[in-house]
């Protein structure tokens, strides 16, 4: 994959967020567990917020990415790989979300190698950092909700 301009990269990133939003929307529709269903719906909203942020950057309304620096726990790395079932639980849903953010981070990291110039590289780095931040945030939620006594 090759990108010729920052606009192109951002368009690509917007499409990725839209895809993720659709993915969560589908899971929300199919889930029978009320908690998982509500969580997936919330994730649709989250992806919309990410999309809006990217669009704001693209239109120059936002100058760049501003992660909060949530510390990583490397939790995603040790958890299993649940797949979607209709009776999926919140715990599995959270792991899926953590993995999706990790995959997105790795994708942008990988794309850096194909960046034509420094500026493009910088924007891909920004996108990767943003996804890493999302992963850390999901890990934090997992930690608070699932591992309340651990």
């Amino acid at each position, binding site marked *: 994959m090759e990108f010729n301009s920052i606009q192109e990269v951002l368009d690509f990133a917007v499409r990725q967020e839209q895809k993720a939003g659709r993915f969560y929307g589908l899971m929300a529709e199919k889930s029978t567990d009320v908690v998982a269903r509500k969580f997936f719906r919330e994730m649709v909203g989250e992806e919309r917020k990410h999309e809006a942020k990217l669009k704001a950057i693209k239109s120059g309304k936002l100058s760049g990415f501003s992660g909060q620096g949530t510390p990583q726990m490397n939790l995603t790395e040790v958890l299993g790989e649940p797949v979607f079932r209709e009776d999926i639980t919140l715990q599995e849903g959270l792991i899926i979300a953590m993995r999706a953010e990790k995959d997105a981070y790795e994708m942008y990291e990988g794309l850096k190698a194909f960046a034509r110039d420094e500026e493009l590289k910088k924007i891909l780095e920004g996108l990767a950092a943003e996804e890493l931040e999302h992963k850390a945030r999901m890990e934090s939620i997992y*930690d608070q909700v699932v591992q309340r006594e651990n």
Partner: protein
Amino acid sequence: MSLKHVLQPFNAWVQAFSKPYTIPMKDTMRPGADRYRGWHINDVEKCVGCGTCADICQNAAIDMVPVKDPVKGDSGLRPKIDYGRCCWCALCVDVCTTGSLGMSNEYTWVEKDPEKCRYTPGVDAKPWDGSEKGWRQEEGFSLIVKDRVPMPMLDPKERIKTWAEVVVGYSVEEARKEAARCVSCGLCVAACPAHMHIPDYIGAIRDGDFEKALDFIYDNNPMPEMCGKVCTRRCEGVCSVGIQGEPLAIRWLKRFATEQFEDFAKVLHPEVKRVGEGKKVAVVGGGPSGVTVAYYLAVRGFEVTIYEALPQLGGATFFGIPKYRFPMPSLEKQVDLLKKAGVKIVTDHRVEKDEFRRLLEENDALFFGTGLMKPYKLGVPGEDLEGVIYALDLLRDHHVGKKVEVGESVVVVGGGNVAIDASRVSRRLGAEVTIAYRRRREDMPADDEEIEDAEAEGIELVTQSIPLRVEKLENGKLDFIWGPAEMVPPDRPGGRPKPKLIEGVENHLQVDRVIVAIGQKGEFEWMPEEVAEKVVTSRGWVEVDETGMTQWPGIFAGGDLVNSTADAISAIADGLKAVEGIQQFTLEGLSVSKS
């Protein structure tokens, strides 16, 4: 008598017509002695506003005045001293629970306005504020009794051979002696989620009036014998006596009071109006929140039926908490009172969707406190292997009388009360036990005393250990593989520090069982979809308003499903809130919404 003496009064009168004057005096002021008891000083950051100084003052020279918002463990009040009354006895300094109050050795201060001769030391600035000299509490001396009366306990080596209660309980003398340490500051009341009348019942125990103590206790806690044995005692954490000494044994004193009576119904005299006559309420779930709602509504005249899926009421305090901490007869006594109060109890009965809908139709209000009945999973590979079990299942099976086996060695994953209970039960079943916890010892949510008791029983604690996976070994055992963690700062100030896996290191532990106790969750399959959709959040909790009511008018909820603290006293506090909410809701003539 000489003529001079006779004329003396007239000479004095002559002075009356002369201009007044002041005789200049040389500065002969002598500084006060090093330990002189002069004007007060107070380290207001250290002071917690307990008011003990005001209580002891025999001249009523101290008023407690608000200087900031109250927080847990600090009333926000500070002592204001009236020097028209103070006799500088320094009793207030000697009794001060924090050691914050002192007296400078300054003793002169001229004020024209007597009103100004009252000030709040440490708040109203005075020249002697930084004074090093004067009267202070002497090292090692205090009017407060700092040491707690020790609680007799079974020897750790003996207790792992039995299911007998570990804590023996205070004798009358011990309880009264311990109660006499209380300074009645009441800081504990604000910290207790149910705001129990702590200084009042402690005072009654001190005076030997145990019936009165029980009356105070039952006023807002229908499971006090349980709380007296297993409460998380947030109250003790703020006890002002605990600042320089050991906090009052509030939990053990409550336990003592309840243990004095076999039949609570014979001694309790609830003075409440039966305002709820003719109103019907259904309670789903017989845990502490449900029991609270049922009992207090019943004594107010409501017709209450409580539905419980298990064979006994009590919720997690029945199926989770082991009998060596909370024996069955204690639970039965409390349930017995519930029956005598007129609550209809239906056990072994799980409410399902259709029945829930019917209960909504037939009752004026419905409360559910169905708790966190399902365990969260470890989430790592190998979790489905035979031998990986859940602490909740182990404890529940054990408590309903099913045979449970844990083999010779177990690892329990988690650091809460559930983990500690599963460990100590496993130990009593004969296993060598290791607890693997992801954070540091000081982060463990379990009660400190419980952790110490577990260690005394020979249970090993491995902190900062993150489960990686579980494998089956050829010898039939399980290989519990874990990695070390370093701690990274929490997301927000005051939050839990977070464990971060140090990658590339693997440790192995061979065990017969891996017992998972990392957290619990609510279960909503029994609830009608239309209700669940409205009341359950995306994190699996239930949201209620300040009256305990969910988004569905007439449906109230409480307990572990609702609060963030997940302990018995918070469940009781939720129940109390819902009692008021249900009374308000039903007596205002509103009916349960059917939509």
